């Protein structure tokens, strides 16, 4: 019981399947301690995105998920979604306003925050992702790397304790990847990164979960895993990226 109280995320026996389709997640259990940085790796179609969406409650499977001690169910959604921010794979899904400021402020407006405080939070979030001069920019005109950073800011402005990233470096060039690394390494929050980029995972995280065909096949230290090329290869992963 002691350890359960310490863990910020607790997943027990999670299963998920879309209607009329085979199981995408089967019997997944793990727990996360506050402040941990964890990579969720695995080949395409392993269920990484589905797992993240289950943690936010956007998808609901069977089993039990608790976030900060709250059971993940409809009445807790508002509070849980404040505590946990998901950065989507495609920033075009997440940046749906015509101005960067409006996008970053969106979540705060729904928290009924005062205007002055919203402006302050938005500026802070944009600073954290090194985009502080882009307040009035049009999202569509930005590069993919810039859009991804703004997408992170939309989540940061809500000051969540847990950050979930879905393939954060997909499609980014080397420079943009490096910028992303610098930003995330400064975070003190709990971070879960779903990726198949093992280099990135190793640079950020000290714990690794490997998903394959909906099963959790490895849960352990990152250090051990990266020195086990056979394990990585068996699950479609490698360090050469």
């Amino acid at each position, binding site marked *: 019981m002691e350890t359960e109280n310490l863990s910020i995320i607790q997943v027990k026996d999670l299963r998920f399947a879309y209607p009329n389709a085979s199981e995408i997640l089967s019997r997944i259990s793990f727990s996360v301690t506050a402040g941990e940085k964890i990579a969720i790796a695995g080949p395409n179609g392993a269920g990484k995105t589905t797992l993240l969406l289950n943690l936010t409650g956007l998808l609901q499977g069977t089993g039990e998920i608790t976030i900060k001690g709250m059971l993940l169910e409809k009445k807790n959604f508002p509070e849980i*979604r404040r505590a946990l921010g998901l950065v989507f794979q*495609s920033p075009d899904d997440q*940046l749906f306003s015509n101005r960067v400021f409006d996008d970053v402020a969106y*979540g705060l*407006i729904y928290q009924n925050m005062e205007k002055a405080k919203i402006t302050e939070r938005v500026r802070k979030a944009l600073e954290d992702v090194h985009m502080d001069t882009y307040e009035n920019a*049009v999202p*569509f005109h930005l590069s993919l790397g810039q859009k991804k950073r703004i997408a992170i800011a939309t989540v940061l402005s809500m000051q969540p304790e847990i950050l979930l990233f879905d393939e954060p470096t997909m499609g980014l060039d080397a420079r943009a990847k490096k910028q992303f690394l610098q930003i995330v390494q400064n975070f003190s929050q709990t971070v879960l990164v779903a990726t198949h980029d093992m280099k990135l995972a190793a640079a950020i995280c000290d714990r690794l979960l490997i998903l394959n065909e909906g099963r959790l096949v490895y849960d352990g230290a990152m250090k051990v895993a990266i020195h086990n090329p056979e394990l990585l290869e068996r699950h479609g992963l490698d360090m050469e990226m």
Partner: protein
Amino acid sequence: MFSVDTRVKWVGAFVVAFVVLSIPIFTWAVYILLFSILVALCIGSQLSFRQVLKRTLLLEIPLLFILIPLPFINRSLPITTFSILGLAIHISPAELLRVVVLMLRSWLIIFAMVLFTMTTPADEILISLAALGLPVVLVNIILLMWRYLALFITDLQKISSARKLRSISPIKGKRDNGKKFIQNVKSTGSILGSLFVRAYEQSDRVYQAMLLRGFDGTLRSLKNEPLHTTQKFQMMIVLILGFCFIMGAYGIYGN
């Protein structure tokens, strides 16, 4: 003009449209004055007059199609008849003059609107629609549409150029016209259809992103800055000017 508040510009655009449409049709004096003011504003905001003119005239072309036949068809007297290449052409000068003035009137309003849009970023114009009193739901749909429009147009260009590359041009000949036409319809339909399918999926994910940030079906946005005294003053001037024009027009015409 660039620094003027969008809401003031809205009032200006509506006043121009309202004045032009409400005055008697042959009130030249008011047209000239309005035109001068618009040209002055255009120069004052350092826009290229030629560019503005080009854009307004381009927009006038469709109107020509509706109106050009009128002087020839209308039978109202007097009618002038002249012949070109043995064809007798009847034309009604009075109707011709009326058509020209109609064009001029609509051109003046278009001029004002072009001036407005060339000095204001598009998203600002759209956001300001809420300040005009349009329902928030509608404004939100418009803003979402504007956000994803550019995305879909880029998609559209990609798809259609990919299709052009892939499709082998059909054998030329009259018989194939029908086939080509069907092909054309089919490919247009499938491009559009695939965009719709993509839109459906896109809206799904946008909705998820909104939900995660607290969207609950109600629509909220930050309050607009209240109008400053100078802006109120500017609006008043525009309104009074418009009122003077209308009164003046009837003063001239009424006697």
